[in-house]
C-alpha cells in the first residue's frame, strides 16, 4: 500500500516538512504518538531503544526519555508539549538534556508541529513540521556531527536525531 512518504527540507528557512500515511485510524495513530508504551516501540532507530523516564502529555508537560545504545550508553531527550488539540494536533519543543532534563546547550531547541488527519479507507495522514528556531539550533546539530573530513557515526547520528 502506498504510504506517500514526503520529506521536504528548506534549510535556508530552517524548516523540514515530513509527511506519511498510516494504515490505521487516527485514534490508533494518535495513541502511538502520545503514549509512552507505544512511542518506545518505534521512536528509536535500531539497534537503539527508547526508555521513558516521565511522560506528561499535557500542555506544559514533558516527555523525558533516553535513547539507549547496545552498550548501555544513554542520550537523553527532552520534549515539552506547547499545544495540544486532542486527537488532531500537538506541538512540542525539543532539546539535548541530561538525565534530569536540564538543557546541556544554550539556546532554544527545535520545535515540531504534528497534525493527524483521517483519510480514505480508515487511514491516517500525519504531517510534521520541524522548525529550527535559531541559527544556534542548526549549529547544535552540526557540532554534534560534522567534522571536516569525517562522516557521522551512528551514535553521533542518534545524538543529533535526539535533539529534534
Amino acid at each position: 500500500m502506498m504510504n506517500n512518504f514526503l520529506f521536504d527540507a528548506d534549510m535556508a528557512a530552517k524548516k523540514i516538512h515530513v509527511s506519511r500515511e498510516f494504515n490505521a485510524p487516527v485514534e490508533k495513530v494518535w495513541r502511538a504518538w502520545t503514549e509512552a508504551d507505544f512511542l518506545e516501540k518505534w521512536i528509536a532507530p535500531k539497534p537503539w531503544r527508547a526508555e521513558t523516564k516521565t511522560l506528561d502529555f499535557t500542555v506544559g508537560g514533558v516527555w523525558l526519555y533516553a535513547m539507549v545504545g547496545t552498550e548501555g550508553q544513554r542520550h537523553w531527550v527532552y520534549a515539552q508539549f506547547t499545544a495540544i488539540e486532542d486527537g488532531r494536533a500537538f506541538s512540542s519543543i525539543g532539546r539535548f538534556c541530561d538525565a534530569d532534563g536540564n538543557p546541556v546547550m544554550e539556546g532554544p531547541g527545535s520545535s515540531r508541529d504534528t497534525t493527524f488527519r483521517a483519510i480514505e479507507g480508515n487511514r491516517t495522514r500525519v504531517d510534521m513540521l520541524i522548525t529550527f528556531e535559531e541559527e544556534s539550533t542548526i549549529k547544535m546539530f552540526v557540532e554534534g556531527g560534522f567534522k571536516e573530513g569525517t562522516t557521522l557515526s551512528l551514535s553521533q547520528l542518534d545524538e543529533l536525531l535526539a535533539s529534534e
Partner: protein
Amino acid sequence: MRRDIFQAIAHPTRRAILTLLVTGAMTPNAIAEHFNSSRQAVSKHIQILTECGVVTHLQTGREIHYHFNPEKMKEIDIWLERFRKMWEDRFDQLDNLLNNL
C-alpha cells in the same frame, strides 16, 4: 570559532551572496553593489562564507574574485539524507506497531 555550512546559509545576506556567486565568480565590489548594506558589512559576510569553505577566492593581479564551492553544500545533503532515512525507518517500525495494536 569553528565555521560550518549551516552558519553560511543562516543569514539572508549570505544566502543572497551565494545565489549571486552560483552564476559566476565576482569581485568584492561587484558583490557589494547588489546590497544596500555597507561595503564593510558585505565584506564581513564574504569573510564568513570563506571561513565556512563555501566560497573560495582567486587573486589575479590586484583583483580578487570570489567563487562558489558546490562541494561544500553537499554536507547539507548528507545530513538531510540521514535524517530522512531515520524518519523512514521510524515510520516502518510504527507501521509494525499499528498492525499489532
